[in-house]
């Protein structure tokens, strides 16, 4: 049994006097899809940021990560002055340098064909988000942490993305998703429910 890509023991977080979760333990292994549910403000994003390593204090418990992380949050993380091609090339430049056609192909998979060269500020907010999501179609980072990836994505895009998630998991990757929508994905889903009533 390989070591988990990210493991957290005894996580408890309190915000503004409310206890969001207490003694939460997660071990995300290869080939697993975790879905974190809970109403708004239940701490889904905070949990994701703790797992990703962006949040390093303000919570109790220990987090160990054995792999690089691909984190997609609420912000599009694209530079509006650069073109989608340059943005995507920059995002994946960390692990390897990809030829131009692979990048354009990834952009096409999220429905941005024809927009590769234009500056990103000419695109709509939804399109800018899809530039960020295009990373999923090209990056080889095993661990994905996605914060409500399906918001502002049309029907076809959602189906496209879900098939990509299942192919990534079959390929030995791991995904942690926070989302309200039910996921139609090939593999089984481990659920974490944060909707417990906030205890004082």
């Amino acid at each position, binding site marked *: 049994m390989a070591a988990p890509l990210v493991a957290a023991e005894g996580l408890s977080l309190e915000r503004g006097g409310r206890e969001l979760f207490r003694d939460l333990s997660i071990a995300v292994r290869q080939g697993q899809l975790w879905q974190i549910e809970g109403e708004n403000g239940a701490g889904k994003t905070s949990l994701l940021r703790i797992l990703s390593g*962006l*949040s390093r*204090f303000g919570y109790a418990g220990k987090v160990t990560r054995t792999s690089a*992380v691909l984190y997609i949050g609420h912000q*599009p993380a*694209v*530079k509006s002055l650069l073109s989608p091609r340059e943005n995507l090339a920059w995002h994946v430049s960390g692990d390897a340098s990809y030829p131009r056609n692979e990048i354009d192909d990834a952009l096409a998979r999220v429905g941005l064909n024809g927009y590769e060269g234009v500056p990103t500020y000419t695109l709509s907010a939804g399109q800018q988000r899809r530039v960020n999501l295009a990373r999923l179609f090209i990056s080889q980072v095993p661990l994905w942490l996605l914060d409500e990836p399906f918001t502002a994505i049309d029907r076809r895009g959602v189906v496209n993305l879900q098939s990509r998630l299942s192919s990534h998991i079959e390929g030995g990757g791991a995904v942690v998703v926070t989302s309200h929508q039910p996921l139609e994905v090939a593999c089984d889903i481990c659920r974490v429910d944060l909707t417990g009533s906030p205890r004082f």
Partner: protein
Amino acid sequence: MRFCLRLLLRQLALAVRRPIEIGQPLMFFAMVIALFPLGLGPDPGSLAGFAPGVLWVTALLANLLSADTVFRSDFDDGSLEQLLLSPQPLFLSVLAYIGAHWLTTGLLLALVSPVFALMLNLSPAVIGSLVMGLLLGTAVLSLLGCVGASLTVGLKRGGMLISLLILPLYIPVLIFGTAAVQASLDGISAVPYLAMLAAMLCLAIALAPLAVAAGLRISVDA
């Protein structure tokens, strides 16, 4: 190290895409320099006496104003978070930001300053030590300025606060910068003062990126 260079090139590409932003510190520098003769009187003799101090204080303020924007645009659109998640050591990547900020403000200020030195009737023989001092000094100012910027980038109204945080740290640079120009005015060699500025630069290059990296981690997580 290659990632750091690529990040530097990306920052410069971003800066070049909107040249007016590069121009702002220079225009501020020119404008404030033009204010002093109006305030202190046009008499060339007195202006020459104030010239080193005026040039350095204005370069300091121009640097301070532009320090706030170093991380703010990346913080607002979320690409700063992605940088924190990259496996590359953060304090090296931060050097790229600081280098890009220095190239777009400090270096240009140093190259443009002879024109304003002549406007303030500073004797041309001295301009060499002024430019050398500004080159070294503005690098230290960028490093310290980015420390302040990293701590206030998360705050909505961080602009004013950054001046209170880092102006006290700018004082040694100001003192030795003006002393270098003053020394060459009095005919003695300015090299020892430039050496002091270089020493401060080495210390700042070694320590400031650590503080900037820590500051960014705190601001992104706040």
